[in-house]
Structures are given as structure tokens and as C-alpha cells.
């Protein structure tokens, strides 16, 4: 088991290195340079100083080593467009907001998605099954930006105390969390439904039933407990989807999160900020994939056994 975790950790580090390198190469293959384009009238001396400040006058190989070293120390450098904040400060300001939004959405999805799927599976081809199906079809087909704008139009405009946008109090988080949660909720409900159907057809369920255990105990202890495993396995992907979703949702609702900084930095061509946020997001994602894999191993006896058998 320790060997498996070590192997996954090694993979995670290689992946992270690959991402940092690719990001570096991409950002340095952009034609022109960030100061040449827009400041045609800056004096030569200032231009030279700017280049020196950001280390752009050094050869690429040296820049790359410096960049790697800085990231190793957790330093993402300074923003090229904002004089007030470093990239680290921006991440420190934006990430808690995004993380809260994402965590709330994940919580909504985790509470309602599997429950909906399980209920649908237990009442196959009845009304609740069709409701679950409609929810999951809507969740999979309606992009989050559509959902967000519809919620603003039909909920926020009608109910006074729910704000159209902004950030600060709990009521600000309601609509964005819901809009963000819908797609993972739908995916989880679909997955839970099919996995629950499969589990409930197994022999051990019949054994448990014939032992005279109450229906609820059979469903919870034998059914849901086994059917929930696939949900655990997609949690990594869910986090990744929530992250992309947050770019869009933060834009619609005007939430000052990291996604908003990222999209503005993309628009402004703030290369250090783009690089910093990309690498930071990658670290978050790789870590969450790692935790999900290890967690999955801990809950699924099958994987644990085969890995130990090797």
C-alpha cells in the first residue's frame, strides 16, 4: 500500500513538472513580448529596466531554472499588469473565495446527486425515476453559463433578497453554488442510479433480505455502501469540472475569485499571472486526484487486495 502511494506521488510530481515546463514553453513562445506591444512610446532605458525586472533579458534556459526554483519556494513572481499585488497575493485573495464557492457546490452535489440516483434506482420506471432522469438530462445538457444567466433572470430578479451578483454574505453564494453544482449533481445521480441498479441485483442483497434485515438497513448498509464507490472515483474529475465552471460562474455573478483573476489575466495577457494561476490550479487538481485515488483505495477492498497481491 505504501508502495502504491509512493508510486502515485512520483507520478504526480512528474505531471506537475510537465505542466510547469509546458506552461513555460508556451508562454515564452508567444510572439513579441509583453512590454513591446502596448508601450511603443516608453523610453529605451525604461524598457530595459522592465525586461531586467522580470528577468526577461536572460537566456531562456536560465529563466527556466529561476522559474522552477521560485515555484519550488512557492513564489509565483510579480504580476506584469498590476503594480499593487504579487501573484501570490492575488492567489491568496482570490482562492479562498473560489474554494468556498467550489466547496459549497461540491457539498450540494454530494448531498443531492447520489440520493437522487439511489431513489431513482429503487423506484425504477416510476415518477421519481423520471424526475431524476429529467434533472440529470438538464444538468448534463445545460452549460453552467446558461444556468447562471437563467437563475439571474428568473430567480434573482423575482426574489428581492437574493442578489443578482456580488460577494460578501451567505445569500450571495446561493445562486452561484447551485448553478455550479448542477452538472456534477447530474453526473453523480446518473452514475449512482446505474451502480445502484447493479448492486441491488446482486446475490448478497437477496441474502441480506432473506435474513430478514429491515429494508432500510439492506438499502443503506448493503446497497448504498457498495454503490457509492464509483462516485468516489469521479470526485477528482468533479473538482476539475467545478474549477472550470467557476471561471464562468464567477464572471456571470461578478464574484472576485481566482477564476475571475484568471480570465481577466488571460484577457489582459498578464503572462506571469497566467503562469502562476495555471501552475497553482494544477497543483490543486493533482493533489485532489491524488487524495481521491488514495481515498478510493482505502474504501474499496478490491483495489487494496490486488495492489497488495502484487
Amino acid at each position, binding site marked *: 500500500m505504501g508502495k502504491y502511494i509512493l508510486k502515485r506521488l512520483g507520478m504526480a510530481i512528474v505531471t506537475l513538472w510537465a505542466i510547469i515546463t509546458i*506552461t513555460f514553453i508556451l508562454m515564452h513562445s508567444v510572439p513579441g513580448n509583453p512590454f513591446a506591444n502596448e508601450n511603443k512610446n516608453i523610453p529605451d532605458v525604461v524598457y530595459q529596466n522592465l525586461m531586467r525586472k522580470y528577468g526577461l533579458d536572460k537566456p531562456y534556459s536560465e529563466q527556466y531554472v529561476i522559474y522552477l526554483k521560485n515555484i519550488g519556494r512557492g513564489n509565483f513572481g510579480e504580476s506584469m499588469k498590476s503594480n499593487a499585488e504579487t501573484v501570490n497575493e492575488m492567489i491568496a485573495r482570490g482562492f479562498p473565495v473560489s474554494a468556498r464557492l467550489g466547496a459549497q457546490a461540491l457539498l450540494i452535489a454530494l448531498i443531492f446527486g447520489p440520493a437522487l440516483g439511489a431513489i431513482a434506482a429503487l423506484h425504477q420506471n416510476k415518477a421519481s425515476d423520471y424526475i431524476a432522469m429529467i434533472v440529470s438530462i438538464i444538468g448534463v445538457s445545460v452549460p453552467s453559463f446558461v444556468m447562471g444567466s437563467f437563475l439571474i433572470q428568473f430567480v434573482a430578479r423575482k426574489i428581492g433578497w437574493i442578489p443578482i451578483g456580488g460577494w460578501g454574505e451567505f445569500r450571495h453564494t446561493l445562486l452561484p453554488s447551485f448553478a455550479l453544482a448542477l452538472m456534477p449533481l447530474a453526473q453523480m445521480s446518473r452514475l449512482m442510479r446505474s451502480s445502484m441498479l447493479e448492486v441491488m441485483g446482486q446475490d448478497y442483497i437477496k441474502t441480506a433480505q432473506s435474513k430478514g434485515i429491515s429494508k432500510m438497513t439492506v438499502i443503506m448498509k448493503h446497497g448504498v455502501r457498495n454503490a457509492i464507490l464509483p462516485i468516489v472515483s469521479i470526485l477528482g474529475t468533479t473538482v476539475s469540472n467545478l474549477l472550470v465552471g467557476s471561471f464562468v460562474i464567477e464572471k456571470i455573478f461578478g464574484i472576485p475569485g481566482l477564476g475571475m483573476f484568471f480570465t481577466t489575466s488571460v484577457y489582459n495577457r498578464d503572462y506571469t499571472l497566467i503562469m502562476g494561476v*495555471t501552475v497553482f490550479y494544477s497543483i490543486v487538481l493533482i493533489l485532489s*486526484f491524488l487524495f481521491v485515488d488514495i481515498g478510493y483505495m482505502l474504501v474499496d477492498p478490491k483495489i487494496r487486495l490486488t495492489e497488495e497481491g502484487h
Partner: protein
Amino acid sequence: MEKTDLIYSEEMFKKAPQKLRDAETIRRPSIKYWPDVWRRLKQDKLAMVGLGLLIIMGIMSIVGPHISGFKYYEQDYSNINVKPNREYWFGTDELGRDLFARAWLGTRYSLIIGILAALIDLGIGVIYGGIAGMGSQRVDAIMMRIAEIIYSIPYMLVVILLTVVFSTAGSGTSMFVLILAMTITDWVPMANLVRGQVLQLRESEYSLAAESLGATNSWILRKHIIPNTMGPILVNVTLTIPRAIFAEATLGFLSLGLQAPKPSLGTLANDGIAGMPVGNFYQILVPSILISLIMFSFNVLGDGLRDAMDPRLRK
């Protein structure tokens, strides 16, 4: 013991009557794989709705931009933000452009991007997965490890990075770059699928037979394995298309979509959201409905195909 020669003569044999021979024939017409899949797909109402919608949207994406009588780029400043009416069926945008023509042209570009991206994924995935599956264990292990690393790079981050690098600020992205960005990591699931199928099917009797007759690996792959794995591949393609369309729409919404004045559904939605605070809700409604319908259709069709091809569900 005397050795007798056995003599066979015509009279000792009799032609079996037709009745006996009939016992051996298969009475029902044999149903080939694809007609059978189609027969079962037809029974899936939701999948057929999806297929029908896709055909309608496909046709409209070809003829739609031409039938309203307005060009998609024509700006008419005397008719800006007109609500849908008899002249402008879907209304006009803030530059007075006809949204009907723009919406269907956007559908066309979104569909083209989705389908091309899925086909490229298919090509790369089949070649890569085929080589990994047919190669030695070491080749397989190395290739799959590389694929694993590529795939664990977050999809949208790469797409956004590439569009940033290869497009000029604020003016959108060329279709080539969009498709490149979408396929650069997304071929991995297809490669995984093909590799898994290859590993399974190369052990089958017909592969063994071909091999013992001297067929090369690439021949077996092309003539025996790939044709037999078309089913899962097709399902995968049907589910890749909406993913690419969704990614393009998201990019469009983040102002990284297709270069103006060419519309895509994502850029139309992005333009539309600007009209929302001033009450022009229809401007976002039209692209939203179209995107959702496309996503819905491909998803239910893909699910239906998967069910229709699953031999365990065969009745």
C-alpha cells in the same frame, strides 16, 4: 479370412428429401450487427428524439443562415436590439445584426468544431492505442504512462493556455487553434479504449488464425481488430463531440472563442449576456437553447447507442 472389396453403387444412396434438409437451415433471417444495433436504437425513444433534433439542426445549420434574407455580418444601426418579430425571427443584436442567421451559422461552426475535434481524437486515439496494444509490453507500458501524464494535465487549462498563446488579444481564436487546443489532450480516452479492446481481441481465435497464416500485426489490427471495435469507438465519438462543443462554448463565453465576426454559440451567448441587464433576454436565450439542444441530443444519442450495442441488454 477372405478379403472382400466393398462395392458402392448408386442405388445404395438416396437423396435426402427436402424436408430433412430444411431442418438444418436457419429459418429467421440472420441479423447482422449494424442492422441489429439500428433496430434496437429505434426502440429508444429518447435517442431517436436526439437523432431527429440533430438532423434538423444539421439541416438548419446549412440552410438557416440563408433563409432570413439577412447576412450574418450585416449591421443595421436603425434596427438594433429589435425583439423577435416577423422580420427578424430571432431579433437583432446590439449592432443590428440578424440573430436568426447568426444563430444558425453559430450552430454550424459549433458542430464543425465538435465533429472535427472528435474525428481527430479518433484518428490519434486509434493509431496510438493500436500501436500500444499491439506492441510489446514494454512499449505498451511506456506509451500508456506518457498518455496518463498528458491526460492528467487539466483539459480546460491547456485549452485556455493554447488559445492565449495562438490568438491575438481580444479578437478571438482561429478555428484551427480551437480544434488543436481541444484535441491536444482529449485523444487519451480514445487511445485507452482502443488499447483495451486490442489487448482483448488480439487473444481471440480469429486473430490467432490470421497470425498463424502469416498476417502482420498491422494487418490484423486493420482488418480484424479495428472493425470489431467500431461499436465502442462510435459511442466514444458521440460523447466526445458534445464535450468539444461545450469546451468551445465555454471559451466563447470567456471571450476566447471564434474570431469575430464569425459567430459560434459560445460567442453569441457571451454577446447575449451583455444584453441581459437591459432586458434583452432573448439575445442569450437563443444560443442557450441551441447549445442545450445540441448537448442533449448528442448525450442521449450516445447513451442510446451504448445501450443498443450492449449484448447484455439484448432481448
